[in-house]
Each structure stands twice: as structure tokens, then as C-alpha cells.
């Protein structure tokens, strides 16, 4: 399901991707296209197939069916030097020093070690971790180690950054820092593709999203398009609780005391306002709200998937 059309070249493309583990079809014919230079979020509850999709796109695993291109290359590992990847399961060598670990991750992707070491110190200093540059990873806090790994993901200045659940396990301050880093990278022309089960992050960061549930893409397009799939919501508070004006409200309007909530009628707000005034409803307040991405997600992926998203990581969901 595609929300809208774009004209930029794609940094990542997948067509008809299928991956089965035993009897379980983790990815079931996914089409995805990530425009170059965009921040693209893959949303879905745990077990939706997000990680499997990213791993296939990166070439860590091969799909059972379908095609993929990464920065225009059908064999993703050939573009590894231009890609940065932060896996969901974070991992570093515990005895390695922080700067050395970042330089090593850069070296894996073709950055000479000397350059990597110098850049590692710059990046650590830029994130307030210069004092930790020569400390072994095992002596760092979890948050610091995660930052080190993130810096190792960008040390070689990739054209594409892929982050699998990057906010998972970070406190609110570090989540904010990560959001800023993603925005900075995107502003410099880097494509950022990340998966998350926290809708708020995607809503704040992404230009485009793909909603994944049950191994399939339920929606792909801009956040705005996703939200536009739902009609704006009207919130009305009246002094009167009954009267002829009530026939102007949609039959599925929800009521809580004298507060009414319903989708904006097809005819717009003016006929409704007229009916309320003529019917002496006594308008206390009236607001029209554009639906959030969460509402769009519920409408697209279903209530159960939305509940899964909330349940997956309550701390993240709250942030």
C-alpha cells in the first residue's frame, strides 16, 4: 500500500521480499523504497518482521524471494563502505578501548585506522566522552557504550545509516541526543533508515514511514499522508446535554458527559456550527484536531498491533 509518489532516487529498494524461518514466514512479500536523503522509519510491533527486513536489505541474510538494491547495488555488501549499521542487539568487544572500538568499526568499512582513531576522538569529544576515549568498553556505562557503538556506525561518514531500534534502552536525554544526531546526519544528505516500535520517534523524525505488521507492509508513504488517511477529529463541549442540535452530530460520535468526539463530517464545520448555534447547544469549546500518527497506525495496522507497540517497551512508549 503506497501512500504517495516521490521523484527522488531511492537509497534502498526491496521488491517482493520473502523470508521464512522453518514454518514461520517472517517477511511476506514486502515492497519498500527509501528515498535518498530522507529519514525513513519502519514501524511495527515486535515480531512484525522489521529486523529481518533490515537484515535482508543490508545483505546480512539473503531473502528466500524477491530482489533488493542498496545504494543502487544488488549485492548489498558491495556497498558496505558507504553504509553504517547499528543492530538491535548491541555488541562491542569488552576489552577494547572506546576510541579503538570506533576506529575498528570504521576500519571494517574501509576507513584507514589512523583516520578512524583521529575521527573517533573528535566524535567522542563532540558527545562529551573525550575522557572515556582510552577506557575499555567494559568500564563504560550502558548508555556510554551505546553511544560508542552509534559513533562507530557513523565514523566512516556513510551515505546510508541503518538503525535497528536505536532508541531502545536509552534514557530520555540520550534519546533526545540521538534524535538530534539523526537530524544532523539527514541534514548533511545522509539517508537514515531506522526501525522502531515507538510511534512518537517516527512521528517526530520521519519524512516517510513504512508500517509493518505480520510480515507485510500495511502502509508506505509520508507521515502526513498516513495521518491524512483519517479525518480530522472534532472535540465539542456543550452546556446543554440534549436538544434538536444533536441530530447534526454524526451517529458514531462518542460522548463523555457533555463532551463529544467525532470525525469531521463530510460537509465541513460550517453546517455543524450553524446547527449547534440554531439548536442552542451552548458551545463551551470546539476544536478540530488533525489525527496523530498513532491514530493513523491504529487505523492502518489495527488495534491489536497498536496495543503490541505499546506493550513492547513501556519505557520507550512513554518517551
Amino acid at each position, binding site marked *: 500500500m503506497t501512500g504517495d509518489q516521490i521523484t527522488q532516487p531511492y537509497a534502498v529498494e526491496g521488491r517482493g521480499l520473502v523470508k521464512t*524461518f522453518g514454518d514461520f514466514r517472517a517477511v511476506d512479500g514486502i515492497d519498500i523504497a527509501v528515498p535518498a536523503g530522507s529519514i525513513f522509519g519502519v514501524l511495527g510491533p515486535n515480531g512484525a518482521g522489521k529486523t529481518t527486513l533490515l537484515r535482508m536489505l543490508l545483505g546480512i541474510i*539473503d531473502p528466500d524471494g524477491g530482489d533488493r538494491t542498496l545504494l543502487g547495488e544488488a549485492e548489498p*555488501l558491495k556497498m558496505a563502505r558507504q*553504509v553504517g*549499521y547499528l*543492530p538491535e542487539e548491541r555488541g*562491542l568487544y569488552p576489552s577494547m578501548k572506546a576510541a579503538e572500538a570506533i576506529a*575498528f568499526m570504521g576500519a571494517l568499512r574501509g576507513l584507514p585506522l589512523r583516520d578512524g582513531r583521529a575521527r573517533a576522538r573528535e566524535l567522542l569529544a563532540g558527545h562529551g566522552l573525550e575522557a572515556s576515549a582510552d577506557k575499555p568498553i567494559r568500564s563504560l556505562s550502558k548508555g556510554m557504550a551505546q553511544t560508542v557503538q552509534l559513533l562507530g556506525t557513523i565514523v566512516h561518514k556513510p551515505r546510508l545509516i541503518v538503525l535497528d531500534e536505536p532508541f531502545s534502552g536509552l534514557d530520555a536525554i540520550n534519546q533526545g541526543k540521538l534524535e538530534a544526531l539523526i537530524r544532523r546526519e539527514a541534514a548533511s544528505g545522509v539517508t537514515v533508515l531506522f526501525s522502531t516500535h515507538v510511534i512518537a520517534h517516527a512521528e517526530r523524525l520521519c519524512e516517510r514511514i513504512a508500517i509493518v505488521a505480520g510480515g507485510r507492509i500495511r502502509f508506505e508513504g509520508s507521515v502526513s499522508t498516513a495521518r491524512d488517511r483519517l479525518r480530522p477529529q472534532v472535540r465539542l463541549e456543550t452546556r446543554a446535554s440534549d436538544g434538536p442540535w444533536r441530530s447534526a452530530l454524526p451517529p458514531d460520535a462518542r460522548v463523555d458527559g457533555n463532551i463529544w468526539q467525532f470525525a469531521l463530517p463530510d460537509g465541513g464545520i460550517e453546517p455543524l456550527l450553524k446547527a449547534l448555534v440554531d439548536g442552542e447547544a451552548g458551545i463551551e469549546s470546539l476544536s478540530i484536531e488533525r489525527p496523530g500518527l498513532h491514530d493513523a497506525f491504529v487505523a492502518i495496522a489495527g488495534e491489536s498491533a497498536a496495543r503490541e507497540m505499546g506493550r513492547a517497551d513501556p519505557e520507550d512508549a512513554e518517551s
Partner: protein
Amino acid sequence: MNETLRAALVIARRDFSAVILSKTFILFLLGPLFPLIIAVFAGSMGQQIDNAASRPAVGVAMTAGDIDRLNAARARLAKQIGEQALPDLRPYPANSDPEAALAGKDGKAVAMLSGTLAAPRLTGKAADVQQFQGDLSLMISMARAGTALPDTRIETRIVAASSGSEQQSRLLTGRSAQVLLFLLTMLLAGMVLSNMVEEKTNKIIEILAAAVPVDAIFLGKLIAMLGMSFVGIAVWGLTALTGYAFFMGTSFPMPTPAIGWPMFVLLFFLYFATAYTLLGSLFIGIGAQASTVREVQTLSMPITMCQVVIFFFASYAVNRMGEAPEVAAAIFPFSSPFAMIARAAQSDAIWPHLLAIVWQLLWVALIIRIGVRLFRRNVLKSGGGGRKRLFGRKAGPAA
């Protein structure tokens, strides 16, 4: 530079530094010294025990005259064939009962010679009788002949070389090199088994697999461990040579191999490298399937036994140059380095070694490829549904 090799060297460098700079590496280097110290002590104690226990003694219950003649004959014989080759003679009273003497608690004689020189009688257990009968017959004959038996003088002519002797000597060199190669491979290659566990335990494997081909991970780890092994061998070798030079002087007792020492040493290192990488590539492939150290430990025993069997096979073939078992041992990849180093001691032809090294390296590549494929399928859970060639990217539309 080829991308796989470049990436392999990055991983090798990391692994090599991590091992060499760790405190446990000191223990690793000291490890072989422990058995050496034990061997020195055991050897010294053994020698003392040997001296104290002396050789087996045969009790002689004869007249004093006969015993003197027998001792004189023994002394003459010992000059010719060596003291160690003859049993000691222990005098007993002439009227001693041989069976009672053997049954007695003193237990100094293992057999009893009684009667006279003209009619001697040997009493003892069957095995002891069989062992001493020949020597005692010789002594008694000489004692009876006395000075009437002349010494035979053999004129000697010394030649520089004897092909039969050289073959035997080179066989010894070949066998020794084979044993050393096996010991080093067995000691060092087993460590590769657990090499992927760290990456899997610390979740680093995902980062590596996303950045470089899995082949490069395997190859890098092999290069690192091979490098570490060479450091160990260099340290142990230099220590051994220094120790030898200090205690024994500069002459080297091993017979010169047919191919010459410099080439033989070079081939030894090359065959160690191939034997190590052959086993290592197999081990790393098997070890990569294991998810815990316990699984690795369980795997190590059957693998060690397989190594021993392969060594026995190569060892059996060593003195059958050119025969079917030796050719088979040279062709079978896992025994090939052992068979070929023994061949280098016995034959000066170079080309079979070039051929063998290329052959062994081909097998290393093949085993790594199989290991990588299994790793991708079983550990990374990739490629389960697609048909893929062993070499190259894909054969079917699915992959």
C-alpha cells in the same frame, strides 16, 4: 587489495592484538615449559632409578672357579658388545637350590644358572629363560674356550656416505618433523574452535556480518591465530635452541634431510601453516555452530581423536615412500602436510611440495566456504530457501 582479504586483515589485526596484549598470553607462552620441566625432572629421576636398579641379574650357583671363568668371559664379551647388552652375574653358593633361591625373599636374581660349565642348567620363568639363554650360552662357550678362543680383528674402512644409512637417518628426521608438526598443530589449532564464541556472545557478529563478507571473518580469525601460533613457535624455538646451544654445544644431532636444512625448515613452517589452517578452517566452521563454551568443549574431544587418527595414518605411511599409503596420505588433505614434511626429509624433489601446498590451500578455501555457508544458514539464519553455489553469489532466482 581484494576486499575480502582487506577485511580479513582488519579482523586479524584486532584478534591478534587482543590475544598478544592479554595477560593470559604469557601463560600461553609458558605453557610448553611445564612439560619440559617435568620431563627434565622425570628424566633425571629415571636415570637415578635406572642406575640404582641396574641391569637384571642372573644368579650363578657354581663352583668358585667356574664363576671366575664366567665373569672373565663376561668381561671380554662386554668389551665387544657393551656392558648393557649382558645380564649381571650374581654369585651364589654352589650347593644352592635354584628354585628356593628364586622363591626367596631377597629377589636379587631373576634366573639361576647352576650345574657346571660343561653341564649348565638355567632355572627361571619362561620369559626370563628365553631372554637370558642366548647371552649365557655365549658366555659359557667363551668361558669354556678360555684363551683358546682368539679375538677376531675386523679391518675397518670408513666411507663418507651410505645410502641405506642415510635413508634410515632421514627417516628419523622425517618422523621427528612429523611428530613436532603434529604436536604443534594439535596444541595450537584447537584454540580456533572457540574463536567465534566471543563474537556470538558479545553480539558483535551482527556488526561484522553487516560490514564484511563472512569469509573475511573466518579468514581473519585464522590469520590472527596463525600469527599468534608463529609468535609462540618463535619464542619456544628460540628458547629451545638457546637451551640446546648452552647445554649441548652447536653441533646438531639430527641427520640432514634430503632437501637440505634451509628448505626443510621453510617447508616445515609452510606445512605448519597449511596444517594449521586446514584444521583451523574446519574447527572454526564447527566452532561457529556452537553457541556456548560448553558446546565447544564437548566438540573438542572427538576432534582431537580425529587428529590423532590422521597423524597415525601419516606416520604409518612415512617409511613407505611412493607406495599407495604414502601417496594417499599425501593426497588426503588433512594428512597431506604431515606426509609431505616426511617426504621432504627423504626426497629432494621440490615440485611435489609446490603442488601439495596449492592443493592444501585449495582445501582450506573449500572448507572455509562450506563453514561460511553453514554459518550463514544455521547461525545467521540466511539462505534457507534459496539454492546457492558453493562459490559465487547465487544460482537460483530466490537467493
